[in-house]
């Protein structure tokens, strides 16, 4: 393992110190590992809370700020944060209009956010609603498993709902909107290499030079199947076909196309993939109207990509275009 580290046990804590120095617009509670926008709580606005394990940067803390999230709880690498953190963050971002938990669908995250909502209900009068994001089509048989994973859709959900929260919409309106954006999104990812969790020091799975994993998650867990390495043209098809087979993306205002890098894949390759994906969408009569290309939801140093597509209605499109000022996404202000 070759990484920029002091002691693997201090990785998350020391990285948060760096975030604090680099981003004075954030306020960080180091003891509880909560990151807030510095002016939280924003009076009269619904507070938006997300979070999860570390190792997905810029998710989750890169999306805190005006037009997006109010706070994020950071866990250990690939480990969900705990209910006490979430309950504390919930209390501190309640501007009087309630708090919406945006939860990535992983067993640990869902259970910890459930317990946090119970704690918040027992200890405060903050109204809390939760929406679980689950867009990953690689998980089949979702009725009999932990369900589809939350992956790329979170960017669309958090951006669009963040803009709507800034407009002063109510907690239940925002929860409905979050569910609609999630329902309108599907994703599929692939890995060229495994990632190495620093505390473990060796790759999570062995992937030979000439093989790739299709249908991966964002924690270095292996995918659904392993296939021989092939051209980007064919890989794009393996990702886009199951997405289009799962939902109708025609109509509306068109789609938001997100080609996400898993952490160790150059932008040059990601734009090549965007070209392949866009060509497949053209052929299917689907119209990309907004795009995002780059590493936004990563899996440490994994190489590979995730394709995420969201069908936009006019409300969602306007909210996507609304101003945002975060470390990860910034436009219009």
């Amino acid at each position, binding site marked *: 393992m070759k990484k920029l580290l002091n002691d693997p046990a201090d990785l998350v804590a020391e990285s948060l110190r760096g975030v604090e120095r680099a981003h004075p617009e954030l306020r960080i509670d180091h003891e509880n590992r909560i990151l807030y926008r510095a002016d939280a709580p924003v009076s009269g606005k619904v507070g938006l809370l997300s979070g999860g394990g570390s190792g997905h940067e810029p998710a989750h803390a890169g999306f805190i700020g005006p037009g997006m999230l109010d706070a994020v709880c950071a866990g*250990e690498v690939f480990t969900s944060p705990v209910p006490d953190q979430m309950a504390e963050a919930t209390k501190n971002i309640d501007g009087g209009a309630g708090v919406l938990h945006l939860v990535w669908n992983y067993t640990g995250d869902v259970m910890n956010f459930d317990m946090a909502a119970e704690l918040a209900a027992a200890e405060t009068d903050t109204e809390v609603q939760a929406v679980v994001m689950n867009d990953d089509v690689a998980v089949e048989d979702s009725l009999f*498993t932990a369900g589809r994973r939350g992956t790329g859709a979170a960017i669309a959900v958090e951006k669009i709902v963040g803009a709507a929260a800034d407009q002063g919409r109510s907690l239940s309106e925002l929860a409905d909107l979050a569910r609609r954006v999630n329902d309108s999104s599907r994703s599929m990812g692939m890995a060229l290499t495994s990632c190495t969790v620093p505390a473990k020091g060796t790759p999570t799975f062995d992937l030979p030079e000439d093989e790739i994993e299709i249908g991966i998650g964002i924690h270095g867990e292996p995918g659904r199947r392993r296939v021989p390495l092939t051209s980007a043209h064919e890989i794009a098809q393996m990702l886009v076909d199951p997405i289009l087979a799962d939902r109708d993306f025609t109509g509306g205002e068109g789609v938001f196309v997100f080609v996400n890098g898993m952490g160790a894949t150059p932008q040059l390759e990601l734009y090549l993939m965007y070209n392949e994906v866009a060509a497949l969408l053209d052929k299917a009569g689907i119209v990309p109207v907004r795009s995002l290309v780059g590493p936004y939801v990563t899996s440490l140093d994994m190489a590979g990509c995730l394709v995420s597509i969201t069908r936009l209605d006019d409300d969602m499109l306007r909210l996507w275009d609304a101003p945002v000022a975060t470390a990860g996404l910034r436009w219009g202000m």
Partner: protein
Amino acid sequence: MAGVDTDALQRWLRAFAASVAAEKDALTGLDAAIGDADHGANMDRGMAAVVAFLDATPPADPAALFKQTGMTLVKSVGGASGPLYGTLFLRMAPATGGAAALEPDVFAKALRAGLDGVVARGKAEPGDKTMVDALAPALDALDAALAAGESLAAALRAAADAAERGRDETTPMLARKGRASYLGERSIGHQDPGATSAALLVAAAASAVADQEAA
């Protein structure tokens, strides 16, 4: 014997912490195969925190011990194991009825309340390849042995054996819950890490109570 007192319960938790520490790398190895390679490290961090509070502020009665253990695990473990093991102990607390020492049937009922909490929190059924596959047969064996008039020590020994059988039986199962479920068919052939740590928990209870009866 006069029931399971706070000292015996402390011995149970310390014995569990010691076996988790000893098996830490093995638990993480099992998790690397079908999950995300952190079960051993997370449980070890949580049980070390439990031992630390037992040393610092010994609880007054079994209910306080269970509640504090559950809260500590929820706070320090994270992932899915934190809420699941935390809920197990949090649900045991009210089932003690505030007794200073738990009669065998009360201890069994408390464990059953804990298991019900785990099932409610994790929504897992027997056969889903989870910790329930070790705990459910263990508590069935415990109830059956107590009903047959066995001592608590003998009943817990039977429970520990059943937990280990249940743990072994997870190997051919297809995972339907947790991160292993994403692997589908590829989860078959691997022993479940949660069932493995749960079997350690039951074995630790058997050894703690055997020590009390021998004392």
